[in-house]
């Protein structure tokens, strides 16, 4: 095991992937607490799949991939935030429609572009091992922005998740803060797509908080636990990927699922003992 870890750390490909993976996992885990609190798991699935249309647009119009996908994801997330206000359309139905429509548009745009350079497997399932310097810069800018906004708005978001009516009556601008949250979820999705891909992004944005939820007793403890579980899942997933030559994103998500099962089992045992 020690030999495997030293080989893993000595590998130039893995050495380059570890730092961005850790950064992505910290940002995703931090936002995952708010995703859980506001029940936005399906939104993350919807936005990540919808980002395929953004990537398709970027391919067709020869625009930079990540920035275009970022703008598209934020627009989709904000549309979803505003949609429940329209009568008769629930949030999950709206997410389902935009998710399917955008994905269909993305597939048609990408297939029409006929660009053999596009790594479709990487887009769908992530490929952190081939991160370019331009991607890295974009991820650092996005991640830092998300962490700053999260630091400033976390308590307000938490307060709204706990009791939106009282938060509104306390003088918090609930509608604006909700829009900001959806926008940040959109940005985080794009951040995660590089590591876990369009299909598996929801895993990074739900599983860390789901593990932490069984143990945390406050916002701070949840945040700390979610980051710890996320780092454990990411590093063991990358190690697993290196050892068996498995796709990195899928390995990370599978490791996080393992963390959740262990966490849930331990929590169940603790409850039985007490």
């Amino acid at each position: 095991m020690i030999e495997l870890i030293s080989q893993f750390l000595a590998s130039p490909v893995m050495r380059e992937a570890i730092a961005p993976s850790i950064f992505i996992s910290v940002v995703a885990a931090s936002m995952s607490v708010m995703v859980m609190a506001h029940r936005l798991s399906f939104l993350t699935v919807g936005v990540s799949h919808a980002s395929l249309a953004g990537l398709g647009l970027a391919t067709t119009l020869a625009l930079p991939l990540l920035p275009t996908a970022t703008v598209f994801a934020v627009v989709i997330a904000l549309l979803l935030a505003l949609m429940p206000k329209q009568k008769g359309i629930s949030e999950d139905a709206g997410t389902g429609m935009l998710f399917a429509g955008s994905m269909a548009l993305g597939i048609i745009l990408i297939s029409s572009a006929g660009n053999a350079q596009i790594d479709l497997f990487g887009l769908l399932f992530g490929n952190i091992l081939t991160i370019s310097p331009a991607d890295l810069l974009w991820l650092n800018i996005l991640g830092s922005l998300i962490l700053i906004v999260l630091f400033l708005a976390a308590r307000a978001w938490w307060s709204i998740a706990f009791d939106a009516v009282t938060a509104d009556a306390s003088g918090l601008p609930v509608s604006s803060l909700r829009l900001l949250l959806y926008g940040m979820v959109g940005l985080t999705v794009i951040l995660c797509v590089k590591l876990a891909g369009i299909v598996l992004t929801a895993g990074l944005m739900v599983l860390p908080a789901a593990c932490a939820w069984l143990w945390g007793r406050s916002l701070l403890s949840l945040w700390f636990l979610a980051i710890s579980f996320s780092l454990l899942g990411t590093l063991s997933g990358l190690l697993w990927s290196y050892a068996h030559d498995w796709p990195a994103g899928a390995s990370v998500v599978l490791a996080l699922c393992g963390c959740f099962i262990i966490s849930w089992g331990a929590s169940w045992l603790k409850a039985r003992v007490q």
Partner: protein
Amino acid sequence: MSTPVAQITNLRFGPASKPVLADINLTLEAGHFLGIVGPNGAGKTTLLNLIAGLTQADEGYVDLFGKRLSHFNRHSLLKHIGFLHQLHDHELRLPMRVSNVVAMGLNDYAMPWKRAQHSDKIIQALNLVEMDELADSDFRHLSGGQRQRVRIARALVRKPLLLLLDEPSAALDSVRQERLFQLLRRLCDETGMSVIMVEHDIAAISSHVDSVACLNRNIHHHAMRGEEIPEDVWRAMYGDHIHIIAHDAHCIGCAPSEHNND
């Protein structure tokens, strides 16, 4: 005469042909404890929401602390208001300590750059509702009555000038109800805080409040302490099938009548 804490003028909510509330006029001075009673669907909760700026009136206006409540100033005016509503379906999903729940009532809770210690204020508020010993407990594991007392502490922690309570005694036993009404009476007298409280049971609140407004779309009557509520007002609110029973001499509204023995 000092500026009223709240003044409601010609308020209407809902379509003019079939309003939920209409012709509502009320003035609330500092230290006044107002009870609002009325049947289900009378518009009691809607009235509280209008005063708290959560809903926009279709006609008329609300003045709070001498300023007209509008979309632009509501956030600053609401900082002086404590609010307790009836819907608490979502809050049990989040892991929270009791003290954290109360902290949410502080005006600067959402501002991480203001890291001032407020533990004294939180403990004081919990002490008012006799929940200070459970400050570190998990909010989700409390009983319904205990949770309601924590919510009341959350509304009180900011030391509001106006407290809006929508059936605060709903989850409380009769002893706790009585203690709550006594506490509100004391805070009105000692701090000058004003209270508007929606309740179903006029008998439970009548010996504590300064006045009772009888609401069913309109305010049918606004009875001050010691004043009798005419029987036709009760019938206008609840219909003809009610029996009116007098409690004691301090009870607002309950005067002995020929129906006492019903």
